[in-house]
């Protein structure tokens, strides 16, 4: 007699065992160390920290190892860990003008205070497979200049001095900051909530949306005012002390886009802005975020929303890859009951159609 098998505990246990075995791979090979992932797959670690919304290189590297290199799975692991951590307070706004610069480029000015610093980038490499990397090789240690430590004014601040770009709204000191992990998103979303959503949004999704704005779906004439990578100081205001103390440095990438100018009706013409920020060196992400941020500000400039990237509900509701992957992949779960209900309905419809071909139309006409 055929028995309806519905899975069960044993199957799950065995599947987990197989997974652990597959993760480890062939035993004659050395097991990869978390520190190696941290160092040698550093950009994967950066992405997992950004979209996992947790600045912890070791946890991110461990998650990548556990996830067998599946970055969205690793991001999920980090998020599920992060959500259990206590919330001690909110840091002071980062002062990115004062950050240590490892890389800083501007596409709008040939030279500027602080200079252009190319830093470690794939940008001008030829994308030829380096077969030499296949075997361990000595990599030379480059000579390093001192990191640019003195304050390098941000390009947007330089332009703002001449009143040629919209002013950044300065929040009042002590004003509450949106926290999309503690409050459900409501529409229309304030910009701080929107930026948080984009900061943890899927890089690929934001890249595609950003690209679409360049191809006419919500065009906003962007210039890279500046991209800067390096370390910024994180400060926390301590009530008991009455002043802010430094908690340490985090590596970040900031992108300030300078966009299509606006003006008229008595208002002087000014450039507009889009903003992107990500942990580590994540330029593609920061740039995409800046383009989408600007696209989402359509209402601020009375622009018609024509492209998907300008549609706040569409963008913010679908940017989170942990949510997206969960819901898409849940289709793997059993749906016997619902399918049975549909099967029953379609059979009934077919029976009626075969038996009385006019039945449904007659009813409709009544």
């Amino acid at each position, binding site marked *: 007699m055929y028995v309806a098998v519905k899975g069960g505990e044993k199957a799950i246990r065995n599947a987990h065992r197989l997974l652990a075995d597959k993760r480890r791979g062939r035993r004659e090979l050395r097991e990869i160390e978390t520190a190696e992932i941290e160092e040698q797959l550093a950009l994967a670690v950066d992405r997992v920290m950004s979209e996992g919304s947790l600045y912890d290189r070791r946890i991110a590297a461990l998650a990548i190892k556990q996830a067998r290199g599946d970055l969205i799975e690793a991001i999920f692991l980090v998020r599920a860990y992060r959500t259990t951590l206590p919330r001690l307070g909110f840091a002071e706004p980062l002062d990115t003008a004062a950050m240590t610069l490892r890389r800083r480029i501007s596409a709008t000015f040939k030279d500027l205070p602080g200079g252009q610093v190319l830093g470690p980038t794939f940008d001008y490499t030829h994308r030829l497979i380096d077969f030499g990397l296949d075997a361990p090789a000595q990599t030379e240690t480059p000579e390093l200049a001192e990191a640019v430590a003195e304050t390098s004014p941000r390009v947007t601040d330089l332009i703002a001095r001449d009143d040629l770009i919209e002013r950044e709204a300065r929040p009042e000191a002590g004003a509450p900051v949106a926290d999309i*992990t*503690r409050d459900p998103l409501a529409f*229309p979303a304030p910009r701080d909530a929107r930026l948080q959503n984009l900061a943890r949004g899927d890089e690929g999704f934001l890249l595609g949306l950003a690209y679409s704005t360049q191809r006419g779906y919500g065009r906003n004439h962007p210039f890279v005012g500046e991209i800067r990578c390096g370390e910024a100081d994180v400060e926390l205001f301590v009530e008991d002390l009455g002043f802010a103390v430094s908690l340490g440095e985090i590596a970040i990438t900031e992108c300030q886009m300078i966009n299509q100018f606006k003006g008229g009706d008595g208002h002087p013409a000014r450039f507009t802005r889009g903003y992107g920020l990500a942990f580590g060196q994540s330029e593609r992400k920061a740039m995409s975020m800046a383009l989408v941020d600007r696209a989402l500000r359509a209402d601020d400039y009375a622009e018609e929303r024509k492209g998907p990237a300008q549609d706040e509900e569409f963008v913010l509701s679908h940017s989170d890859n942990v949510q997206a992957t969960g819901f898409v992949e*849940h289709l793997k779960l*059993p*749906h016997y009951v619902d399918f049975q209900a549909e099967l*029953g*309905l379609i059979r009934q*419809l077919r029976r009626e159609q075969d038996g009385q071909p006019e039945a449904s139309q007659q009813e*409709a006409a009544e």
Partner: protein
Amino acid sequence: MSERAYNFAYLDEQTKRMIRRAILKAVAIPGYQVPFASREMPMPYGWGTGGVQVTAAILGPDDVLKVIDQGADDTTNAVSIRAFFARTADVATTTDTREATIIQTRHRVPETSLTENQILVYQVPIPEPLRFLEPRETETRTMHALAEYGVMHVKLYEDISRHGHIATAYAYPARVAGRYIMDPSPIPKFDNPKLDNCPALQLFGAGREKRIYAVPPYTKVVSLDFEDHPFERTKFEAACEFCGARDSYLDEVVTDDRGGRMFVCSDTDYCEKRQAAQSRKAAE
């Protein structure tokens, strides 16, 4: 991090309080979707994170938990969620519907009638019954606020004119306490009548969509229909192959590649209880 580093039932107490507040509001406004700050859970969105958060928020050490998926206790996801609470809350679990104080479910309402001492927690993928008619949350919230449900009736009417029937077999919309239209989650419409005037508290959790809603005990829940096309519960022509039940929802099992089929109860506890009773009777 060791397991002890996690709080009872995984979530921290502050989060539980926040969820309980949302639940209280949901109970006070039957069928209304209350936004809540859904947390990331260690299982994927779409796999029951809303239900798990509601259960975690209401679970006490003396509770007896039952988890079903597709009506069965031994489906993989039900096993996984039950194991999660057994591990993080160390609560007693059961497959017996009558023994349970909290039942978390995906896609079914148990066949055995529930009591006032029980809470049924539904896992909900898309809480918004109007979502597939209007994708925008800003719009649908306004429609609910104004009780502007015309589009739903138009959709149902279009079904009738096209197919001769309302072509919704599961997640069949219902009006709660004469006010809000609610998605009862993707339960087959066979189960809809069980929601009406149910003695148990029914809670609905949608984690990814960050919504909680509720049907308080003994609340009127009316499946949408028309006077000349009244709501009809799905009827099966077959009986359960194992227990002979004719009043339960049946799963169709393909037995061979020549069109062979058999039907068995989707509610495994109900089916096993009936089989046990029958063999006891036979032994007497």
